[in-house]
């Protein structure tokens, strides 16, 4: 399978995503520049973390108008897999590829810490290698990660089981104290209705090696790789 990692002006986790995919997971991966058209055959496009366009106006608001994003929207609409991490999640919400919005952390502070996550749904290409209820440990580092959606949107998220990850305490409970940023219902990651676009605030790319404290992030990437292998098989 082929991965593409987009670099926007102000992206800073693009290299970490690239290195984790290439060096830890032995994947074929290419950098994509925000000013280019999305050309070539990719199975999964990753929008990395950072501060695209200096977070001007709102986080992710400007990046969605990058030339490459027109291609990413088309790619997603035609069923391609899109993963947005942190700022990438913000961009996906601003582009309308994911519902809701990410707002300033309720505590107003930038949070940089490891968190526990609970796997809520596994019938997606992003969480297929996980078990329902499985705990993951990954770091977060963001100032605007407070997920918000209006009541109707939240009901749709429940009905379609689009909430894939929640912040939990060490015992796996989505307690208020385990919510690092004030996100609605401790939401850490959601997918779209078609289940081919996934956004999350935690950083799987820096949790792919034991030396960094956790290998749990790799399970997101291996889920995607396995889903793509299945897709390739079923398409002959």
């Amino acid at each position: 399978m082929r991965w593409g990692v987009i670099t926007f002006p102000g992206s800073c986790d693009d290299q970490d995503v690239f290195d984790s995919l290439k060096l830890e997971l032995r994947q074929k991966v290419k950098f994509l520049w925000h000013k280019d058209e999305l050309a070539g055959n990719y199975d999964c496009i990753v929008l990395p973390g950072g501060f695209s366009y200096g977070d001007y106006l709102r986080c992710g608001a400007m990046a969605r108008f990058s030339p490459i994003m027109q291609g990413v929207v088309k790619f997603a609409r035609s069923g391609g897999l899109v993963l947005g991490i942190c700022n990438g999640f913000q961009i996906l919400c601003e582009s309308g590829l994911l519902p809701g919005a990410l707002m300033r952390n309720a505590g107003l502070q930038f949070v940089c810490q490891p968190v526990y996550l609970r796997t809520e749904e596994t019938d997606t290409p992003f969480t297929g290698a996980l078990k329902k209820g499985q705990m993951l440990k990954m770091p977060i580092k963001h100032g605007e990660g407070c997920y918000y959606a209006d009541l109707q949107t939240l009901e749709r998220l429940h009905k379609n089981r689009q909430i894939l990850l929640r912040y939990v305490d060490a015992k796996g409970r989505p307690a208020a104290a385990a919510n690092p940023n004030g996100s609605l219902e401790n939401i850490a990651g959601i997918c779209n209705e078609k289940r081919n676009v996934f956004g999350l605030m935690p950083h799987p790319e820096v949790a792919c090696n034991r030396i960094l404290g956790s290998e749990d992030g790799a399970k997101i990437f291996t889920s995607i790789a396995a889903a793509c292998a299945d897709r390739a098989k079923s398409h002959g």
Partner: protein
Amino acid sequence: MRVRIFVLLKEGVLDPQGNAIERSLHTLGYGEVQNVRAGKYLELNVDAPSRAVAELRVREMCDKLLANTVIEDYRFEISSES
């Protein structure tokens, strides 16, 4: 025409900045202050044949970029000076 645009978080959407500002004002002795909301203020010039056209265009700009209508409301004023 000169356009003045005000973007504010919707009623009911948590505004931690507004709350922090309110607490600071209380600390300074302004106990009469309530319901502080922090938002954005933008000014811009538009070239348009009429006020109606300008309104239409600015509304589009707000919906597409200047406000995120999932969480924010906006309003604007247009004056003939520039």
